[in-house]
Structures are given as C-alpha cells and as structure tokens.
C-alpha cells in the first residue's frame, strides 16, 4: 500500500508548475466546469466572469501551488513539540483552544516564519502565475522585469531587480527581527 501511494506521489513530479496552473483554466473558464455546474443547478443566470483572469484566480493558483511550502516547515516544527508539554497543559486545566493558542502556536513560530519566508519570496518575484492566471492583464514586478529584458533594456531590468531584491530582503529582515529563528531552533 505504501509503495503504491509512493508511486502515486511521484506523478506530480512529472508535470511543471505551469501545467498545474493551466489545468485550472478549463475548470474556471466562461464555459468551464464550475460555470456549467452553477448554470445547470440554476444558481446563476449568466456565466461568472470573475472566476478566471482575475485576482481570484491568481490567489487560487498561488494557494494551490505554494501551500506545501507552508505545510512542511510547520509540520516539522510541530513534530519537535514534546507531547508531554501538551499533557502538562491538559493537566493544568487548559482547554483545546487554549493549548492551541498558548502552547502549540508559540512553539511553531520558527516553522511559521520559515514557511512565510518561502511563500513571500516566491510570490514577490512571481510573474508566470500572475501572467497566466491574470490573462496578462494584471501587473506584477516580475512582469515588468521580464518585459524590459525582452526589449533588451537590461540595465533597466537590473535596476528593477535590485529594488525588488532589496524590498524582499527588507521584509525577511523585519520578519526575522520579530521572531529570531536561530534562537528558536
């Protein structure tokens, strides 16, 4: 069973980010699966336009592609939590929500910060997802750099890239100032 599951798990490694993004298009399009379903059930009268090539579809694709970058570090830091700490919290009369808020979340902070760094750096520099899911209509910094490079305005693209890098580093610096990963690990 585990072997079969493992084999199943290798399948997404055969496709790229872009293919998984494009596979949302037949689902969300004007005559896509979602619109057809909603029309046939009579929930809507006309196809919904905001499903594809909009901010909604961009966020959907981002969340679909990058949630894993959040799961892995948080899972990792959760597995390090000593189960006896949680038992101690129970013994002292904390309920489930209190344990979640006062014990688990503080101990997961390094994982949350690492996951946030992954997601924020990837989204800040992204231009393919915003390009494909936004129908090339929604601006992004990566897109500006890409267009400037395609017109051989390399110095302008480099200047944009330097500013983007500085901003992303600033965000990461602020996050690591708020929670010291090195100390917590």
């Amino acid at each position: 069973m585990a072997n079969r599951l493992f084999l199943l798990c290798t399948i997404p490694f055969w496709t790229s980010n872009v293919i998984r993004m494009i596979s949302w298009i037949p689902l969300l399009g004007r005559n896509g699966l979602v619109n057809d379903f909603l029309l046939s059930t009579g929930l809507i009268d006309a196809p919904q336009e905001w499903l594809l090539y909009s901010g909604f579809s961009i966020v959907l694709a981002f969340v679909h592609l990058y949630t894993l970058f959040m799961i892995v570090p948080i899972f990792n830091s959760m597995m390090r939590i000593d189960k006896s700490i949680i038992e101690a919290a129970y013994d002292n009369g904390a309920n489930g929500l209190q344990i979640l808020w006062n014990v688990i979340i503080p101990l997961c902070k390094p994982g949350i910060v690492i996951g946030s760094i992954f997601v924020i750096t990837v989204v800040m520099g992204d231009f393919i997802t915003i390009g494909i899911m936004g129908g090339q209509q929604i601006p992004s910094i990566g897109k500006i750099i890409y267009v400037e490079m395609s017109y051989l305005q390399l110095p302008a693209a480099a200047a944009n890239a330097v500013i983007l890098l500085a901003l992303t580093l600033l965000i990461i610096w602020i996050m690591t100032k708020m929670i010291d990963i090195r100390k917590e690990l």
Partner: protein
Amino acid sequence: MMKFLKLKPSVGLLSIPYSLIFMFFFFIPLVLTLIISFWDYNEYSIIPDFIFENYSYIFKDCFNFEKDMCVTFRTYLSTFIFCFITWFFTLIIGFFVAYFLAFYVNSVTWQIDYFYFVLFHFGLRM
C-alpha cells in the same frame, strides 16, 4: 581513514564545494546585476557607465502626490496585496493540515502516508 588521508576535515574545508556553488550561481550573478543596473543602454546595446537614470526612471513622478499613484507604486501595491492574501490563506490551510498530520494521525506509517498524500495533492516540485 583520517590518518590515511592526513587531512583534518574542518568546517572551512567541508564548506568549500557549497561555497563555490553559492559564489558562481548566486553571488556573482547578483553582483553583476548590481553593476549592470548602473549601466547605460540604447536600442541595441548596453554601454558600461555609472549613471542613476535607470533608478530615477523607475521612480519618475512617484513622489508627486498631487497626481495619481505612479506605475511602479501601483505595481508594488498590487504585488503586496497578492502576497498578503496568499500568505494569509497558505498560513491558515498549511497550519491546520500540519496540525492534523502532527497531532491527529497516530501511527507513524499513516503519518508518512498522509504526508505523501499532501505532497501529491499540492504537487511539490522544487
């Protein structure tokens, strides 16, 4: 083995391969980008120079607050908004999936299988 090699492995020595990769594929391209961002360019070539026109062009009209927000700021604003919304949703979903995996799946085998299932679902590709 150590005696045979007559080399004391140190942190510095062991970090040489990765340092070289880091230098060639990360640090040097980054420095080149920084250098080229000060060069001049025309329609068909880039010209070695030291000018700040590339930067001033990006922030042209950006600090004139009587007009609408400039293109650069609007683009950054839209990217920041996407960044924030994506961060929020990935954090919520990621936290609870990790919580389920870490605390509700008892046996280690099932934990690993569920973890692979999650990998499969979100299709990790590095």
